[in-house]
């Protein structure tokens, strides 16, 4: 089912996209089906959205709604069933150099120092050693890890390791940073502080970011727009434009406006999250029903 006209209008109205400027990312009628033993399952159903230069967009939804599937498709790791994904003017056919990916799981290379981890994509690109180390050091400083560049990941906290992953993705100067629940494994305080760090990075580098998250606070704190996904099959249910002032910090979470935006997102998400929970309970109870 194609995205509703209402959703499309909201996307165009709320995107602050200059019609004359091409978006960094354009996703059109994205569909992903998986073949399982129980038949074909549609995980993502005609999802459309765009991300303009310098925007930070969050994609939020209940567990199992297809957010990570969208992440993997846009990142070129998984093929789509239907639709188009245009990155920097090119239709993707695999991982694209314009996209830097930050994964949910900890993804630093344990055998490389912080500096060597960040320099990794530059090494692959064939840059000379002195140049890549100098450039990597710049991004180590941007994420606030100067002084730790010679340490190994085992000597760092979870939040620090995730900063290394962010620096590594940035070192390649991607047009867009694609992040899949990067702070999911961290405690709330660390999450808020890293959110501050991400905002600083975005403001300093004018970085375009697509953030996949299930955390409403995080989505509202960081984003220009929040795209709310429905439970399976995943569709864009609503686009919430976040008109909080920039530059922002985590102090914004105590404002009334922040609370209103969180409530707005939750009002749509709650229904979808309930559907997801009900569906899982039904699946779990089915083997028991068969035995009685």
């Amino acid at each position, binding site marked *: 089912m194609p995205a509703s006209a209402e959703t499309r209008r909201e996307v165009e109205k709320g995107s602050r996209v200059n019609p004359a400027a091409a978006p960094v990312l354009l996703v059109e009628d994205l569909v992903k089906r998986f073949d399982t033993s129980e038949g074909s399952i549609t995980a993502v159903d005609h999802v459309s959205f765009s991300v303009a230069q310098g925007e930070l967009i969050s994609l939020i939804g209940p567990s199992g709604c297809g957010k990570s599937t969208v992440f993997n498709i846009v*990142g*070129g*790791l998984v093929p789509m069933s239907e639709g188009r994904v245009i990155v920097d003017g090119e239709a993707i056919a*695999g*991982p694209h*150099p314009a*996209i*830097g*990916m930050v*994964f949910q*799981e*900890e*993804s630093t*290379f*344990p*055998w*490389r*120092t912080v500096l060597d981890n960040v320099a*990794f*994509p530059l090494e*692959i690109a064939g840059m000379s050693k002195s140049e890549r180390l100098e450039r990597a050091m710049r991004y180590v400083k941007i994420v606030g890890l100067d002084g730790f560049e010679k340490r*190994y*990941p*085992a000597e760092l906290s979870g939040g620090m390791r995730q900063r290394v992953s962010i620096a590594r993705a940035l070192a*390649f100067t991607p047009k867009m940073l694609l992040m899949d629940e990067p702070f999911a494994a961290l405690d709330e305080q660390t999450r808020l502080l890293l959110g501050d760090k991400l905002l600083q990075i975005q403001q300093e580098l004018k970085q375009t970011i697509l953030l996949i998250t299930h955390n409403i606070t995080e989505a509202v704190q960081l984003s220009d727009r929040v795209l709310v996904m429905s439970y399976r099959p995943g569709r864009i249910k609503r686009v919430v434009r976040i008109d909080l002032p920039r530059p922002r910090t985590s102090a914004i979470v105590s404002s009334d406006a922040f609370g209103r935006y969180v409530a707005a997102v939750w009002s749509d998400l709650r229904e979808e999250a309930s559907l997801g929970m009900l569906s899982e309970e039904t699946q779990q109870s089915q083997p028991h029903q068969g035995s009685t």
Partner: protein
Amino acid sequence: MVGAASVIGCLTAVEALIGTGVINRHVVPLPSQVLLAVPRIIIEEDIFDRFLMTAGEAAAAGFLLVAVAIPIGVLLHRTRLVCDAVESWIGAMAAAPLVLIYPLFLVTFGRNAATIIMIGFTAGLAPVILNTLEGLRATRRVLINVGRSFKLSRSQQFWKILLPSALPNIFLGLRLGLVFALINVVGVEFLINFGGLGQLINDLAERYDLPAMYATIGCVILVCVVFFMTLERIERWLRPGR
């Protein structure tokens, strides 16, 4: 320090048990007598040359394991069909007493060091192959996806991500493989009476010189310790950050 103290403690306990007759001194000599036999085997039995010979044979088997067994493990990881066909047989090989087919090696290579090295190599094959394969398989999916996101070629994925990730398992396999190789090297030296520490153990046993025999066994353990320490240094150099 703790290791050395525990060894000394055990030897002291054994000394006391033998001295009080709990352990038969005609089967196990007093540790103090074994220690006193060390200068004798150094002077009279050419222990250094034998040590070097056994260590050299085991090291040669080890180099062959690195050159052959690790690439076999890599090949099995890349070709699923071949891996499914042979993995169980390689596992079975690990449990088989390969030293019993030493006459086949004797006929093939002759009564020389080549036979000993090849038996050692064959005995060490299975643990190195299986641990290499396991190490490559155990590479975390997210690290492979990081490589894909940076558009690494297959060769780059292997050298920059898969191999470093698998190194701990590979070195575990090499340690096991070297132990198997050394056991078989000493065993075949013993069986075919051809030089090295194994032959000396055989000679001393036939002469019923138990303290010297146990002292020579201690030298075999020393070979193992040297190999393990060397492997550990190499692993730390290749895989820092552990």
